[in-house]
């Protein structure tokens, strides 16, 4: 049987990093293929090569045995390769039908659009996905899960024979995921080759036929039947060693008075009845799936999202935090964003410009004068302590590796001397070594008395780092788990709270 798609010995380098090194991937028609690897292992680069966003430096892509070289994503789409990315790519104000048929609204740019025909055609694809909704409805009226199906429908409508799904279940409830899997199995039986990228190994074993694992930009395995593997073996390939057994002893909960306290907080983003507290020296973990409302909660604490009810207390006193500037300068609260590039750093500016941004206000004199020397004196010790690797503090930060960038985005808060640090997904896209380093750093900060709220959807990270875990789903806290570092017990307890939520249909 000819492979539907083959990537042969592909390599790809970016300035300062070799993202892919001699990687191969073979997809058979009528099978679901798992693509696994830790963040930064090269999965997204490989997907971008297959979908025509990147060209490999070496190696080739073959479609049905023919070598192809996509110059842009349109050519990949035309060749029958469809991708549904982690983030939604729909024009939400347009109708479902228009979105599905967006590439073919008319024969040429000036053709009048036949909406009747477009919606009739779209309805066919929706029916194939068991999605019986009016294609005239705007996409904005759909749930996240439905939008995902519409994107799959859009891909299929373009005669897709190779379908790539990047973390399709990240924002779905378990029930919605099962519906999606049913549809994927049917597509597989119709002969579509499917690539399934996920961090959730349970799903991979449930759904997929074969697996390719990437580690540090290389193949840890390529196209192995999953029935020959067990979870331990897959994890070992992903991280290069046996699954980590918690190495830190559980820490007793601090006895001190809470630094941050939330009481029945409700927000305009939709949170309701959120209550918890963080004490100095304590690491409180906030676990939840994408879309559970965790980052939004952080932004509500920072005053960016309006609080509509309840009370926030800082150091025992009621706090009215109006803006992140308030949070930092009046209450000593810092936030390491999950989105380093969009919200964390100014990539165009120097390491110094980024590390010092939180202390400018403190270090300038009465006339507002700032000297580089003063800022360096305050930030250099922290940058050294965190072992940030940069030729000089004047280096443009966009040129540093992701790990070093992340260190700087933590360093600026340490330099500011915050009392409470909210850390949102600290190790996304970070190599394993820096990841372990950041975990140690968070731990050390807590030991030195900083109160820490750790947001992560990385289960091993949560079990490894947090003292006490809150489980969030649907913008509410569903439960608390005392972390005794017993991975099996803790992860099952956490998933229990999340599944519980799904089965009672509480998700808004």
């Amino acid at each position, binding site marked *: 049987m000819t492979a539907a798609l083959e990537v042969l010995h592909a390599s790809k380098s*970016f*300035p*300062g990093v070799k993202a892919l090194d001699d990687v191969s991937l073979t997809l058979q028609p009528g099978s679901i293929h798992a693509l696994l690897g830790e963040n930064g292992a090269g999965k997204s680069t490989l997907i971008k090569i297959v979908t025509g966003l990147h060209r490999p430096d070496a190696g080739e892509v073959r479609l049905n045995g023919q070598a192809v070289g996509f110059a842009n994503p349109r050519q990949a789409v035309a060749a029958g390769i469809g991708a549904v990315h982690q983030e939604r790519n729909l024009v939400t104000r347009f109708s479902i039908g228009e979105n599905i048929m967006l590439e073919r609204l008319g024969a040429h740019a000036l053709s009048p659009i036949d909406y009747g025909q477009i919606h009739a055609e779209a309805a066919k694809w929706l029916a194939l996905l068991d999605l019986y909704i009016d294609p005239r409805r705007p996409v904005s009226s759909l749930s996240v899960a439905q939008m995902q199906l519409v994107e799959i429908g859009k891909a299929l409508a373009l005669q897709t024979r190779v379908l790539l799904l990047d973390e399709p279940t990240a924002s779905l409830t378990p029930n919605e995921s099962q519906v999606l899997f049913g549809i994927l199995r049917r597509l597989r039986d119709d002969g579509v080759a499917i690539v399934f990228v996920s961090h959730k190994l349970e799903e991979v074993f449930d759904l997929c036929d074969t697996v390719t694992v990437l580690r540090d930009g290389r193949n840890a395995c390529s196209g192995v039947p999953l029935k020959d593997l067990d979870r331990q073996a897959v994890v070992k390939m992903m991280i290069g060693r046996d699954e980590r057994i918690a190495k830190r002893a559980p820490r007793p909960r601090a006895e001190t008075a809470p630094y941050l306290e939330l009481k029945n907080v409700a927000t305009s983003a939709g949170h309701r009845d959120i209550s918890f507290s963080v004490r100095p020296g304590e690491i409180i973990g906030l676990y939840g799936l994408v879309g559970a409302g965790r980052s939004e909660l952080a932004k509500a604490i*920072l005053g*960016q999202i309006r609080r509509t009810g309840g009370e926030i207390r800082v150091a025992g006193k009621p706090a009215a935090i109006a*803006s*992140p*500037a308030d*949070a*930092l*300068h009046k209450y000593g609260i810092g*936030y390491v*964003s999950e989105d380093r*590039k*969009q*919200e*964390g*750093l*100014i*990539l*165009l*500016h120097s390491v110094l*410009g980024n590390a010092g*941004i*939180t202390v*400018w*206000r403190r270090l*300038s004199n009465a*006339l*507002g*004068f*700032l*000297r580089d020397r003063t800022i360096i004196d305050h930030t250099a010790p922290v940058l050294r302590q965190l072992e940030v690797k940069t*030729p000089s503090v*004047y*280096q*443009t930060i*966009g*040129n540093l590796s992701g790990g070093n960038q992340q260190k700087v985005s933590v360093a*600026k808060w340490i330099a*500011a001397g915050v009392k409470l640090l909210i850390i949102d997904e600290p190790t996304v896209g970070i190599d394993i070594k820096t990841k372990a380093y950041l975990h140690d750093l968070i731990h050390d900060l807590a030991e030195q008395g900083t109160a820490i709220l750790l947001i992560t959807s990385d289960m091993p990270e949560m079990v490894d780092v947090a003292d006490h875990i809150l489980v969030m789903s649907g913008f509410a806290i569903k439960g608390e788990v005392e972390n005794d570092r017993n991975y099996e017990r803790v992860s099952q307890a956490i998933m229990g709270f999340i599944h519980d939520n799904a089965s009672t249909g509480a998700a808004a």
Partner: protein
Amino acid sequence: MNDSKLTRAFDNDWIGPALVSLVAIAAISALQPSFLSSFNILVLLSAIAVNMLIALGQLVIIAVGQMNLALGSIGGLVAISFAAMMEIWHLPPLVAMGGGLAIGVIAGMASGFVIARTGISAFIITLAGLQIFKGINLGITEAQPFYGVPQSVKDFGNVALAGPIPWLVLPMVAAAVFMWVLFNRLRIGRYILAIGGNRNAAELSGINLDTTVIWAHALSGLLAAGAGMMLVARLQIGHPAIGEDWLISSFAAPVIGGAILSGGHVSVVGTFFGVVIIAIITQALVLFAIDPFVVQIVLGALILWAVGINRLREMRVARAKA
């Protein structure tokens, strides 16, 4: 590593425009020796002085990642108010100047306040501002110039300080030095660049967006006011059309000088050479009696060249991000 090359390119925003200026001066004076005559240099420096303030007024808004379409209309309003205060109320020039600067700051702050509080794009707000300030201008002047400009003001705009150097160079030097200090040594300047570089990151790092944006627009208004009054001195009348032709060159000079239009990176020295290049081209075409429309075409081509170079750099930064 290509890091150092990129850094160097950023550090040296002004080298390219400076070289272009020098080559242009050399070439033109070779063909037309009168280009370096004392009188011509005086005229050239006067134009550069005024245009530098105009360019700096736009530069501070570019730095914060916005654009100010009302720059010329604020400058025009200040120009006629300045002349009117002296002609109608017989205020001494220095007092009228203080009033003019205040009007500029207030007009800028008003734009900045509306932009910061509503979150509507600066393009729209300053477009509305352009119309409003122009309307006030025409309401006051009824489209007639004010002629009663005192001799001391006229002298300031037309007499040489020393040799071929006009008095007008003084406010230019003051403004340029101040702006350089602002972007390199003052907290508010760093805030402006941080917001232009990444608004979200700046806000989450504890920078007050509203205050900083209002500051930037107030400064822009102040510089526009300065330029408007310098033009009154130079033209010797308070003409209601002052400011109408500022827009293109206010963007062209900073961009030629290496400013990134999306914000976060500007060069005061580069902007100066941008202003110089535009002034030389304009002058040369007059000297060679070339049709004025060619000036427009050459200026347009220069902008394309400058943004092309900018784009190249952005792509290098983007690649570094990937």
